[in-house]
């Protein structure tokens, strides 16, 4: 088996000096793929993603990006290495305009960001219409698009989304999923945590079911949807 593009390999760790939340947890994603992490509340889904992004003390195991060991890097350094992260909450600059949000996303870049911005406006046409409006005045779904757009401004090699559909209506949720698939089609590997397990598994090329901070089931989205254990334990039969 070849090494995946991004892998959090057998990670064990917790926040600060606190107890371990993850035990021997492995998460990986490849270009062109959408990998989702699902699981019951408190299973450590977000924690696993934060571990991959370096916001957690990983006491054993490692995180590798494109073959390079990045376990010791800070989240900021990982952004420079090409990881884009969209936090679950507080993921935009509310008093700044949509365009300024995108500009700030590209803060570490010194080249011309115009093309990337145009690409993002093509991907999320609503943002072009609202580009001079304060991001905090937008609807929940539009804000999430700003947040994803901001993360894409660095031209990341991998995009990580922490519950992108939390708190938006079902219709908006469908639209967001469509957008995420579109982003994935541009070749960027996407790793995301999702509450809406069924929908997430439907679009997943690779899926991880976490229970109590460790891998319970792994497979493609379809495999897991068909798996009776997974269905019984939290898809509701």
């Amino acid at each position, binding site marked *: 088996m070849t090494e995946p593009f991004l892998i959090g390999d057998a990670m064990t760790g917790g926040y600060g000096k606190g107890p371990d939340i993850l035990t021997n947890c492995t998460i990986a994603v490849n270009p062109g793929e959408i990998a989702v992490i699902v699981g019951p509340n408190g299973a450590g889904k977000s924690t696993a993603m934060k571990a991959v992004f370096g916001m957690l003390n990983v006491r054993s195991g490692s995180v590798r990006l494109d073959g390079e060991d990045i376990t010791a890097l800070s*989240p900021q350094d990982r952004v420079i290495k090409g990881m884009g992260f969209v936090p679950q909450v507080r993921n*935009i*600059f509310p008093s*700044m305009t949509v365009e300024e949000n995108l500009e700030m996303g590209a*803060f570490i870049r010194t080249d011309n960001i115009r093309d990337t911005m145009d690409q993002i406006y093509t991907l999320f046409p609503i943002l072009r219409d609202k580009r001079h409006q304060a991001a905090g005045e937008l609807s929940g779904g539009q804000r999430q698009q700003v947040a994803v757009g901001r993360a894409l401004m660095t031209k990341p090699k991998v995009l990580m989304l922490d519950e992108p559909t939390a708190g938006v209506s079902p219709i908006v949720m469908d639209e967001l999923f469509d957008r995420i698939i579109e982003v994935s089609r541009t070749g960027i590997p996407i790793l995301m945590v999702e509450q809406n397990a069924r929908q997430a598994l439907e679009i997943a090329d690779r899926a991880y079911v976490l229970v109590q901070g460790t891998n319970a089931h792994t497979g493609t989205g379809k495999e897991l949807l068909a798996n009776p254990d997974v269905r019984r334990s939290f898809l509701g039969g």
Partner: protein
Amino acid sequence: MDFLNALVAFTNFVVVPGAAYGAQLAIGALGVTLIYGILRFSNFAHGDTMAFGTMATIFFTWWFQGMGITFGVLPTALLALPFGIAVTVVFVLATDRVVYRFYREKKAAPVILVIVSMGVMFVMNGIVRFAIGVADQNFADGERFIISARTFKDLTGLDEALAIRTTQGLTIVVAVLVVVAMFWFLNRTRTGKSMRAFSDNEDLALLSGINPEQVVRVTWIIVAALATIAGVLYGLDKSFKPFTYFQLLLPIFAAAIVGGLGNPLGAIAGGFVIAFSEVTVTYAWKKVITYVVPDSMAPEGLVQLLSTDYKFAVSFTILIIVLLFKPTGLFKGQSV
């Protein structure tokens, strides 16, 4: 003609001084609001930073005057201002390095930083009084009036005069320039935008690769410049006395909070709200009223709502009303 005289008296005693005082408060409040928005604490040392900057500027003014350098019709202090700002910037950055940075690294709660800033306030207070003394210093020179009372009367033939002092005109002009430069910086430059981003959402700013120490440094530089400008303008307009500057803290904080802490536009609006409230409440309206009402109704008393000795009560009252009914201020700011 009477109505015209009333208008002139009103402009002379309320509008002009209120506008000048408002501009001074606005620049002061802008500094307070920037610190609150970006470093996330109420800087009690701001009044004394103004005093320090003004003192530095006065020393340079005296030095220039000693060498025979003046600025023609404008006050020499204007020439000394950039040097005063430079000294204050160095002082403030040094304070950040030895005091505030320690607490920032420990991620101290805002309330601790407020107390720390009070300590800094006492130290600055002492330094200023030790260096220049506690007495009044009048350092305005150059032409005293843009329009003097006599010229205005000769020109218009009215009974009432409108006098505009050079320092008042200067205050308004400088304030407009400062505010325009400030907003241009915050809205148009990369560094300015990164400061707003940092103020909006610190964690996301870090994720976007914005360097917090750089943001903090630029903030202090701007705040030192704003404080010095506000202090020098106030000192030119009235006079420089360290204790008065310490007292200015109240109207400045009231202005920043009324406008909405952390909101630069609010700080400016708040400055004028406080200044005009203070001036209108403490002004003796007898003259203006006598002009507009029939003779039989002319007031006998001064029609002064509050003695000028109590002018701080005005900012205090406004502060309390705002905190009770609209804690986020007139513009969208953070609540205290």
